[in-house]
């Protein structure tokens, strides 16, 4: 029996089982953590910057398939991008790359992106602060 499955794309299922970039970075330039207190998903994103360019990225998280896959994807996407370019990533780009997200789970798919953008915005204002936590999504 096969199940029509428009809920979790192969990309999501694969990245959930085998997430990329999971774990801490050594001496990250920026570390952003937070979560959605209502659903309980939490994540930390680690970035290594050289100038304005992301040279490495990773994440740790507690969460569902979608938020895990999204964090995996995002940390892969941002490598080599400038801060400005990262800030330009849209939720829809994420959804497309993830192979589609159903309405009720939008927040899971954007958790990592929201954290990262908020972290970078705060970092732009105050580059001295390299650990930002408690962001509520």
């Amino acid at each position, binding site marked *: *029996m096969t*199940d029509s*499955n*428009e*809920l*979790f794309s192969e990309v999501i*299922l694969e990245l*959930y089982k085998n997430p990329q970039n999971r774990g801490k970075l050594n001496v990250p330039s920026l570390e952003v953590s937070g979560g959605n207190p*209502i*659903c*309980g*998903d*939490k994540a930390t994103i680690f970035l290594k910057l050289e100038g304005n360019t992301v040279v490495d990225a990773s994440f740790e998280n*507690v*969460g*569902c*398939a*979608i938020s*895990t896959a999204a964090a995996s994807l995002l940390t892969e996407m941002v490598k080599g991008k400038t801060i400005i370019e990262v800030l330009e990533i849209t939720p829809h780009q994420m959804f497309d790359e993830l192979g589609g997200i*159903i309405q*009720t*789970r939008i927040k*899971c798919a954007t958790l990592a992106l929201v954290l990262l953008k908020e972290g970078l915005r705060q970092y732009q204002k105050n580059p001295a602060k390299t650990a930002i936590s408690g962001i509520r999504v």
Partner: protein
Amino acid sequence: MVNWEKIRKEFPILRRQVNKKPLVYLDSAATSQKPRVVIDAIADFYCNHNANVHRAKHTLSEEASNLFDEGHELAADLVNAYSMQEIVLTRNATEAINLVSFGLKKKGFFKKGDEILVSGMEHHANLVPWIVLAEELDLKLKVIPLSSSMELDLDAAEKMISKKTRLVAVSHASNVLGTINDVRQLSRLAHDYGGLCLVDACQSVPHFPVDVRKIGCDFLTWSSHKMCGPTGVGLLWGRQDVLSSLPPFLTGGEMISEVFWDRATYNSLPWRFEAGTMDIAGMVGFGAAVEFLQGIGFDEISKRDSNLGRAAHKALSQLPGVKVLGPKPEKKVSIFSFTVDGVHPHDVATVLDSDGIAIRSGNHCAQPLLRDLGFDAVCRASFYFYNSFDEVDKLVEGIEKTQRIFKVGKK
């Protein structure tokens, strides 16, 4: 013999399709669905009797006041209170617990170093107010541990309780585990040492007969919306002498007797605790819900609950890769928290939802319990008398489908 098929038909929403499948609503522990009679009672109130209560001499106000008071009477009857003076209308059970905590504080009931005993399975509603109070007054909050069978360890409770224990605040039934706690014994223990006992009956009153005289507690609270009634209505029962010893909580109109620019005196029970315009229509809807449930009979509801619970327990326990939390079905209401190996609870919920099956996933407002059990989130399927055995099967099929999608489960 109750015709459950027919009773189910009285709930309009259960005819709904979700994602092109018939709705299978297994989230009644969060909030129950409403029968036609309750929805109609609210509409009828607004179409025929709507007015503010207790202060006017006109017919509408008289009618509204009578309906409003009747809601208090029905609440009193529901839990076998001594009189409706012991019934305070609140917004929800959460507010009722806050009313007690603010009142005991203002009354000076606690002194530094006193202890409050809660159970290891409390909902945030019956925990956070006590955490706040403990912090404000320098009290100690103690937690009755769970046994391996996910029941309260009453021997441990007995050892923890002492003259310092001014309050025992426990849930009658857990909204995560379903466990039914021996609140009678806990009330007795609290009283033995001169303390008070508050029972959070949110998950018991909807499911089986609850009798405050038999329990012997001092406060009991529950929410209308979990027992077929409208949102916006919570109930607090307080033993008359205890309740009347509490100072007012919220202040304003209705709860006063005489007001001067610099001082005020207060109304009698229960009105002293009902400040401003209450949810009058909500109270009317609540009354209709009580009559509806009493019409079926709480003994019958309780039997139905056991039968559905046993079926669900059996079916879920047999599923490979599925873990069910909680005691044996005889010791609980039909609330089932479970996990599916290799799949996050939210993802289980999403797959089930795609087939019209509504379950809840998350921490169920019981983060400390979940943390103790080693989880961030779990799935919860909660049943009510309007559910069918057929829906137990659908739940199982939905979980199996989830396992196929995530390629986990069997062997």
